[in-house]
């Protein structure tokens, strides 16, 4: 089949070099295909499953969620989103009161500050570590393949397994971390049981899990830098550190920016690690974060409208980050 096709392709290419105005029957057939005015009829069956899915699992949830966020709904009453949903929305419509209520409470700020705290600890650590991993894996030493596999294993692990492992690794009495710390004479904290250390613990587990992923993205960036720069610098007598500082870092800036944006968005979406590592969001709610709150409001406290407003606040944050990314990319990141 493929061979046939190639042969016919050849024929077409020949046909295309024929003088203008040349026509034969075959030519007409495929010209018709290319200019289908009735294309939507042909395309429809192919689009149908996907469009149906979009309507049911994307558009409908978006509309429903926006509506719910503007209604008074305890979640106790049964509401059907297929039958009489809009009557329900009209009857219980309270406009932006849920949002107003969210912002009047202190909780949203506490929760957002937890996400921000996670970000502040996570991002610098993750950037440094993943860049180091990329440099290690990107070098031409012999054992690179082994390191690549090892660094990538945490990425393959599910968050639930990873979080369970870390919960046990960070056990204050029976965990290896405090054992190692004890070996060098430091008395390790109670990690997840401590209000101060609960969030850093989650950061630690997250960096462990993610650095291989971001490291590979950095590796892609490193490999796209032309070796000529390094050769020129070497001839000029630049040291390895100078080369890294003056060539690698600036030329890597698009990748760095991209990784920063990804991890920024990621920081506002952390969920499984928090749910599994800290029961009830840590001591004194030290690890309450956005998605965890949305889940609890909706499925534990039944405050659906409230939860939906939280969702949209989360979306607004992600949206703002994405807009910022687009603006900045145009401004100062230079792609080659």
């Amino acid at each position, binding site marked *: *089949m493929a061979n*046939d*096709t190639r042969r016919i*392709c050849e024929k*077409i290419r020949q046909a295309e070099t024929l003088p203008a105005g040349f026509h034969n029957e*075959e030519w007409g057939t495929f010209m018709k295909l290319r200019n*289908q005015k009735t*294309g*939507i009829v*042909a395309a429809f069956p*192919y*689009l149908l*499953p*996907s469009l149906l*899915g*979009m309507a*049911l*699992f994307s558009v409908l*949830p978006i509309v*429903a969620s926006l509506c*719910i966020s503007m209604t008074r709904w305890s979640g106790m009453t049964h*509401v059907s*989103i*297929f039958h009489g949903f809009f009557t329900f929305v009209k009857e219980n419509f309270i406009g932006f009161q849920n949002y107003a209520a969210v912002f009047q409470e202190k909780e949203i700020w506490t929760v957002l500050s937890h996400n921000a705290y996670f970000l502040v600890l996570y991002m610098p650590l993750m950037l440094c570590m993943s860049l*180091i991993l990329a440099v*290690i894996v990107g070098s031409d*030493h012999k*054992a690179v393949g082994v390191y690549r596999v*090892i*660094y990538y*294993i945490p990425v*393959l*692990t*599910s*968050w*639930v*397994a990873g979080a*369970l492992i870390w919960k*046990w*690794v960070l*056990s204050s*009495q029976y965990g*290896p971390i405090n*054992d190692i710390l004890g070996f060098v004479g430091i008395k390790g904290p109670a990690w997840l049981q401590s209000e101060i250390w609960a969030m850093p613990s989650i950061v630690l587990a997250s960096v462990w899990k993610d650095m291989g992923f971001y490291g*590979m*993205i950095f590796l*892609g960036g490193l490999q796209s830098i032309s070796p000529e720069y390094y050769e020129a610098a070497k001839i000029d007598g630049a040291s390895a550190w100078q080369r890294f500082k003056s060539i690698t870092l600036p030329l890597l800036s698009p990748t760095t920016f991209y990784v920063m944006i*990804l991890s920024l968005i990621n920081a506002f*979406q952390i*969920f*499984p690690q928090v749910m599994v590592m800290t*029961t009830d969001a840590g001591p004194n709610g030290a690890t309450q974060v956005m998605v965890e709150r*949305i*889940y609890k409001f*909706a499925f534990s406290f039944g405050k*659906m409208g409230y*939860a*939906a407003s939280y*969702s949209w606040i989360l*979306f607004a944050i992600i949206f703002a980050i994405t807009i910022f990314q687009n603006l900045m990319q145009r401004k100062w990141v230079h792609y080659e």
Partner: protein
Amino acid sequence: MNKKNYISTFLYYLLATLIAAAMLVPLFWMISTSFKNKGALMALPIQWIPKEPTFDNFVRLFDTPGFIGSMGNSLVVAVASVALTLISSSLAAFAFAKIKFRGRESIFLLYLASMMIPTQVLFIPLYLVMSELKLTDTLTALILPGIFRAFAVFMLRQKMKTIPDEYMDAAAMDGASLGRTFFQIIAPMCKGIFATLGIILFMESWNDYLLPLVMLQSNSKFTMPIILSAMSGQFKNQYNLMMAGALISMVPILILYAVAQKYFKAGLQVGGVKG
């Protein structure tokens, strides 16, 4: 090799090995714990390597109601949702890449826009839709959303756009219908992307936590991550059992990685596109 090179090579291996060792500590601890008996679990000083290794935890784990079932559930969900996504998305991608119709670009823009809204924002209404379809607490609720994956459509469309239109024309000349052209010419040319996407999606589904947590209620329907997290509540401090569970849950993905490393690498490059 001069002296300076020896030193830098030594430093390289030192750093690389130190980081690797640090990253392996949790995994080593998981494996070590999964072979410990009750006494060794809480022994002080801690035993890095269990003195009396035992398979008991694995045996007990398989006796735990729902555990074996959860492996099956995870597998069914992962395979079915990957298949559904690949079929539905490649059909849509074919339409976007190879058939001209009015509104094509605007519909596709809608697809791209939908990628900006993550599941974390939509899981409440998604639950409501599923409960309306009477699908909550079924595996179907986890499989069905795979029918619409904008990023899969995006990737497949990119690939199909690189296939010259001449193939389409040639097939048409041979009298092949659009459907035949898709199945016999276009789809086979996307094999590599199918494999890459398939692996990303399989891993995503196998490791997923949020959607099954929201959708599933009964023990017999749980996927592996959910039964693991449920166990951590049920078995409180029996970490030997939980570590055995975590270990088992990792094995399929590790095997897949060993077999298809090439596609993981490609997948990562694309995974970035996903955002």
